């Protein structure tokens, strides 16, 4: 009933169509793969946010597929003015220039303020605490040097095929960058 046809049996119509479709598909796949591979990159692409386009809206904290966003605040120390009254660290009208919680802008207390020399203070980000809400970025960019900015941290990023934040970014600041240069850092020579 289910016996195989003998080897010299004539090719049936179905078999002919099937073989033809397979041949054509393989050819098509080969051509497409060849054309794409010719200008393909050995490395991958990763998502990154451009600090020059970032509008500090706060979407990064909530839109990432991760519970704790892979976007964190990064500090370009070379751009920083080391201000005593840092508008990225302190609330708009701080009662006192101390690290008391009520004076801090960061909702999770992720910015560490350390004394360097009079009257300069260093501000550094504790990435474990940072949620990527960009409140400090807004403060620093509006009144200060703009040394605080957001970046996707690639040790945390899941490298989704389509970044969930990119879709909702109001500044369209997210783009694919080659994996060889996965960060878009701020420098003084801007």
């Amino acid at each position, binding site marked *: 009933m289910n016996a195989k046809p003998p080897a010299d049996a004539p090719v049936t119509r179905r078999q002919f169509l099937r073989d033809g479709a397979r041949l054509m598909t393989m050819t098509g796949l080969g051509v497409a793969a060849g054309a794409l591979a010719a200008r393909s990159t050995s490395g991958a692409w990763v998502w990154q946010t451009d600090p020059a386009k970032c509008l500090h809206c706060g979407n990064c904290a909530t839109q990432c597929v991760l519970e704790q966003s892979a976007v964190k605040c990064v500090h370009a*120390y070379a751009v920083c003015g080391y201000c005593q009254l840092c508008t990225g660290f302190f609330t708009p009208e701080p009662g006192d220039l101390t690290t008391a919680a009520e004076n801090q802008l960061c909702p999770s207390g992720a910015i560490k303020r350390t004394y360097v020399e009079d009257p300069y203070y260093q501000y550094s980000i504790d990435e474990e605490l940072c949620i990527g809400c960009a409140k400090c970025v807004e403060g620093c960019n509006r009144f200060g040097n703009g040394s605080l900015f957001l970046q996707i941290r690639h040790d945390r990023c899941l490298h989704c095929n389509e970044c969930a934040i990119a879709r909702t970014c109001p500044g369209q600041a997210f783009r694919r960058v080659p994996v060889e240069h996965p960060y878009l850092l701020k420098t003084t020579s801007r």
Partner: protein
Amino acid sequence: MFRRLKWIGVLGMMLLPALMICAEQRFPPPDFESGYSLPSPSTPPTRCLWLQYADAGVFLAALAVAVWLIYKKRSRRGLFWLSLFSLAYFGFYRKGCLCPIGSPQNVVYGLFNPDYAVPVTALIFCFAPIAVTLFAGRAFCAGVCPQGALQDLVLVKPVAVPLWLEEALGVVPFIFLGAGLVCAGTGTGFVICRYDPLVPFFRLSGGTFILTAGAAFLLAGMFVGRPYCRFLCPYGGLLRLASLASKWRVRVTPDVCTQCRLCEQSCPFGAMREPAPAESNPASPAPERKRLAWLLALLPLLIIAGAWAGSKLSPAAAQLDPGVALAERYARQQSHPARYGLMTPEALSLDRAAANPGAVLASAADMRHRFDLACWLFGGWIGLVIGVKLIALSVRSGRTDYEPDRGACVACARCFTACPNERVRLGLAPAGGESAPS
């Protein structure tokens, strides 16, 4: 008084160039006297390149093992362990990204956007399962796909889906595939990835909507075998097509079919088809032939009607693109101003559009043109899918035995041990059937 004014003037002259150069740096970086050295921001590296190639290697090896298990070992148990490995590796370790289901989007995006070079790994993930399927059936679905493995795990008590419903819902993957490729080709986004209901389980996080959809699929999957694979997965649709042309296929029985129907009950995916009764009277298929002829004539009409309907869809579909949506919101804002909260994404993006309306409107117009063509093609594609489905339903199969449907079979190997002849071959049952001593 005059002296003071002059002093201010001199100071102003000195400050002016400084202001022009350091427009961003309102507070000049200090010269530290205490020997403080500037730290530099850390840049944790991304996953290294050789690991990505290792992923592709594991993927190809898993495909080869799946083919070997299906055809040489004919082992459901082996396939089960392979699919568990795939679930652990591609699912929970690699978090379901990059997976072949989404990879056609990368390919199409690369074809239509010259700036984007498709990574080699994406090409491998996209083309290797199709090539394997062209020769050996859907081995990828059986043993390598983590989404399929997850659904296989939750399957408790499969119920048979009526054939009419199965065939009707079977067009959904192709429509989803078309929509996904339209969005990828225009550069709007990767909707197949966005609406993959099972990936959030691999990541153990996700939005409310997609988690609910995923839970619904898993709940349904307890009683309907692999609902995502059968009724939504666009890559499953591609492999279904490739499987129709496959060189080899899964054969339930090693030699002779006794038509016992045991394999039919063993298939949880409704892929087993009964033999088509042989035509005794050559005159009887005349109405069928007539219907087939009508459907063949209808096919171009369906495609044209679909293309027309698709072109009507274009203005609405273009809204999917964030740039077009922003341009329309900006235009609306000019005629009917709405108030958005301070510093909300909506207000910020409107500010951005207001700063340079020409660029935003021009890019939106360009995107609308892209959507015009894409929706035209998409509509035609839907017409083609429906037409071909109708034709496929009208073609006689010519089956003489119980056989898995070429397209629907995911090569899971469940039916092998259900076949009494296979059990005899394996030495699990005595040869000879009734004549054997009981």
